[in-house]
Each structure stands twice: as C-alpha cells, then as structure tokens.
C-alpha cells in the first residue's frame, strides 16, 4: 500500500469517527435541554388532553429512552429522513438544504473577497513594511479583528440602509414577492451589505498573517541570495514570496470556514437574511430540536469539506507533498 493511500484511509477513518462523535454530542446536548418536545410541537398554551399529548409523543418517538431516540434519529439521517421541523412544519432536510444554498451565496462571496483581497493587501504590507499604507492597513485590520461582527453589521445597516437609503434593510428579496418574480439584480442588491460585512470581518486575519509571512520571507537567507543574484523585486515576489506564503494562506483561509459560518449566523440575524444561521437561531430560540440538529450536522459537514479541499490543494500547490513524502497531520 502506498503512503498516499494509507494517508487517505487514515483521514477517512478520522473524518467518519469525528462526524459520528459530532452527531452524538449534538444529540446529547439538544436532548439535555430543559425543553419538552411535545410542548414545543403543540404550543405551550395548548389545551389538549393528556391522552392526545401522549399520542403525539408516541408518534414522534419522544416517549422512548434517549439511546433509542438517537438510533432512530441517526438511522433517519443516514437514509435521508432528517425529521420534521417544528417551526416550519416541513422536512428538516428541505429546510436546511434551501437555507444552506441561500447562505452559501453569502458566505462564498465573502470568503472569496476576503481571501483574495486579504492576500493581496498582506503582500503589499509585507513588501512595504512601515510605509504609511502598511500602517493604515495594519491598524484597520487590528480594529476589525476587535470589532464584533454584529456591531459592524448594525453600523453598515444604519449608514447604508437607514441613513443613505442605498440598500434594503433586510431579507434576501423584496418582501411579498413571488419567488419566480425576483430578479438576480434584486438578489444581489439584498446580498450586498451582508456580504460586505462578512468580507470585511474575514479580511483582518488573512491580511495580518500574509503580512507576517511576507516579512519573514523578505528577511530570509534565500531573499539575500536572490538579491545577490540580481533578482528584481517583482521576480523575487513571484519566485519566492508567493511560493512560500501560499501554503499557510490556504491553511488559514480554509480553516476560517468555521469562523465565517459563525459570522454568517450573526450577519444573517442583523439583516434578517433567511439563511442557515438564521434558521439555527430560530430553531434554538423556539426549541425546534430536529432543525437544530440538522443545522449542526450541515455546519460540521461544511467545515470538514473545507478541510478536505485544503488537504487536496496542498498537493496541488506544493510538489513536495504531491510526491507523498510525508503525511500532513493536523
């Protein structure tokens, strides 16, 4: 067996065990909650007789012991039946899928913009260390890293939507319009502000890290040797800086998927953007356990997918890894 297949098998086992543990933990946490699923389903002010409540519990399996309930749930998940959302009265799988696609537009835009812009700005700062541009960008990034996402979202909403009136104050499309009448321009118009906020909050980390790594490269021995060979700055950047900082930047940017998901939860809340983060908050606030579990699973899958793509990209970017010389751990 080659080192590479061994590495892949090891990774698959790791992902499967982790996903299994994620499902156990989320289920345990959700079941521990002091929320009566029957009450959440029937409404807290219901006047149903006890028999009927028992029937509801029996129908959904809520009268069974937790382990049996977990097995029922995970069995359903594996066969595509994720349960019924209590607040939307629709299959969780459909709700989560729909919401996830809406969020993906938001998170994807922000992720690409923050990655590309942050990488570029980081190189610029690193090459021109201590110039005024470097100082301004660095200061800006430090403040951004310290600012709560939801506060930036509030400020953007206040300034661009309320004060200037350039953008709508919420939702993903004009309210009260049929889905087929909504144009792409309208969607983009609604997407702009949340995506802006999410990009801006994601940019700080990648910029600061790229800046550090660029400075490191500039002060290295191979940089000195390159200068001695007479390489111009452009040649040096392309041949040495880019190659040395690409890998850490990829690691960071794919690792930030988990954070961009969290940021999206907050931004969606402020802009009432009907994405998966919004669904997570609604589910937790209103005790919709099946939906909450579904969102948590999708979130974990999303993070795993990001890590997997990063691992594949390492091989593309770095010929040493492609040769399968050493497995990357962590």
């Amino acid at each position: 067996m080659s080192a590479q297949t061994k590495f892949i098998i090891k990774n698959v086992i790791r992902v499967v065990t982790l996903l299994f543990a994620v499902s156990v933990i989320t289920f345990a946490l959700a079941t521990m909650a002091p929320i009566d699923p029957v009450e959440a389903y029937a409404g807290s002010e219901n006047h149903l007789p006890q028999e009927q409540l028992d029937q509801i519990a029996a129908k959904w399996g809520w009268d069974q012991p937790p382990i049996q309930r977990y097995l029922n749930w995970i069995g359903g998940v594996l066969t595509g039946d994720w349960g019924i959302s209590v607040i939307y009265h629709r299959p969780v799988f459909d709700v989560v899928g729909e919401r996830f696609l809406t969020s993906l537009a938001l998170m994807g835009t922000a992720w690409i913009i923050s990655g590309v812009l942050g990488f570029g700005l980081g190189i610029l700062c690193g090459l021109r260390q201590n110039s005024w541009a470097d100082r301004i960008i660095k200061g800006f990034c430090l403040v951004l890293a310290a600012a709560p996402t939801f506060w930036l979202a509030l400020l953007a909403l206040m300034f661009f939507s309320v004060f200037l009136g350039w953008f709508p104050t919420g939702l993903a499309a004009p309210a009260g319009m049929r889905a087929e009448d909504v144009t792409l321009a309208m969607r983009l118009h609604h997407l702009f502000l949340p995506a802006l906020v999410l990009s801006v909050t994601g940019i700080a980390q990648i910029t600061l890290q790229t800046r550090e790594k660029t400075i490191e490269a500039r002060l290295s021995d191979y940089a000195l040797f390159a200068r001695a060979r007479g390489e111009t700055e452009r040649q040096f950047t392309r041949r040495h800086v880019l190659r040395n900082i690409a890998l850490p930047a990829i690691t960071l940017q794919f690792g930030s998927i988990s954070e961009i998901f969290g940021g999206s939860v907050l931004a969606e809340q402020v802009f009432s953007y009907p994405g998966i983060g919004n669904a997570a908050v609604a589910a937790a606030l209103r005790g919709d356990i099946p939906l909450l579990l579904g969102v948590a699973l999708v979130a974990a899958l999303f993070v795993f997918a990001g890590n997997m793509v990063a691992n594949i990209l390492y091989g593309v970017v770095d010929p040493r890894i492609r040769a399968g010389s050493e497995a990357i751990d962590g």
Partner: protein
Amino acid sequence: MAELVASRAASREARKNVRTSNRRRRAIMLAIVLGVILVAALVAGLTMSPDLYASDYSQKQQAPNAVHWFGTDFQGHDMFCFSIRGLALSIVIGLLASAVSGFVALILGSISAICGGWVDKVILWLADLFMSIPHMVMLLLISFSVGGGTLGVVLAVALTHWPSLTRVIRAEVLRIRTGEFVAASRAMGKGNVWIAWHHVVPNVLPQFIVGTILLFPHAILHESALTFLGFGLPLDSPAIGAILSSSMKYLATGAWWLAVFPGLMMVAIVLLTFTLGDDIKQLTDPHTVQE
C-alpha cells in the same frame, strides 16, 4: 584598522542596547497602563451605584449631550453608565471563561505531551472534535442544552476556548522535552522535578499566560454575540450584546448613538487586551525577554 572596526562594532552594539532597553521599558509601561484601564473599568462597573444606570423615563431618547455623554435609550438609561456596567459584566465573564479554558488547556496539553501514545491521540481527537463544529454553533448548542441565560453563556464560553491553546501547550512541552538542553541536564544527572521546574515551567508559563490573556478578548466577543442572539444574559440587563440587540429596534428612528458608543467601548476593551497580550508576550518569551 582592526581596532577601528572593533570600536565601531562596539558602539553599534551599545546603541542597539540603548534602543532595546527603551523598548523593554516601554513594554512594561504599556502593560501597566493597559492593566490599570481594565481594572478601572471593572471596578467602576461593579461598584457603580444602581441609580446611575437606572431607567428614568423623563430622560428617554436623548441624543448625546453634556449630561448624558452617550445619550439615553428608550427607557431613559444613561448609555455611558449602562455601557460601563455592561463592560464590567463582560469582563467578569471573560475572566472566568479564559481562566477555565486556560486551565483546561494547560492540563490537557501537558498530559497529552507527557503521556504520549493513546492519551495523546484521544486529547488531540477531542480538540479536533471541538474545532469541527463552527464555534458559534457549539456556543448555541451548549447554551441551548442548559436552557440559555447567564449560566448558559458562562458555560458555553468557558468550555469552548481550550482546543487551540491545548495544541500550543502540547507542542511547547514536546519541544522542550526533546530539547538538547534537557538532554544535557539529564546527562548531568538532574531529576525529573528539577527539569520540570528549571526547563519546562519557565518555557511553558509565558505561553500559558499569554495564551490565556489572548483567550479573553475572544471570550468577551463570543459572550456578547451569544447575548445579542438572545441566548446569553437577559435582554434587559446592561450587557453590550443586549444593548445592541435592543438598539436594532430604534435604528430606523435614527437613534444612532445606541449602537455606536456601546460597540466602540467593546472594541476598545478588546483592542486593549489584544495589545496587552502581545506586550506581555514580548516581555516573558525567553527569546525576546532580553531585547
């Protein structure tokens, strides 16, 4: 000629020393100033008379003015005092959470590095597990599992910040254990306790302290986010997340001060602690402590 070169080198060395000793002094001054500001905000917020941030309907919805620097909200709270009080609550939760997380990280990281083998694998796997669910979702789940509220936010923030620091401490302990200076000490017949005290502690302690300080800003940002979403401190309490959440209802009426100032104060505290952490890192790291 050789003398000239030597004296030049010496004077360059001396100049460098002057410059760096100033840097060290500056770092100590900065740490003291930042520490004093943090403690002052904490003490002011905790000992403040409740009258100062009580609601007063005769004073409601005022824009910032000489009496109410940050304006008042729809219930007539003075936003300056209300925010200071909220910051103090955040600082308390942040301190608690970073202390718990830092301690967990220290124990797990050390055990992981010292025991190795399957213990190491289990701990790393646990850290991976916590990092594979987006942090915000994990916070929501933990808070949800105990029914939200103050207990929910404290537990959620305290129990989720250890994985990254655990890895740092594990790597550091491993690095020291396999270091040449430890091998040298062993060769000279020093025991485990001596090595732990003279090599491991001085190297790990700074990492631990700095790591714990740098957890603090994350903890208070997550606390306020959770409160903002409605899972943390009660929404009528003076907490930055709660203030910003209720300010959302008044944005359309142009009450900009309700959102701007409390948020700015939060940013200030977070920036302060980030800077403090970096500063102490420079002062305590064996590699830069002599600079």
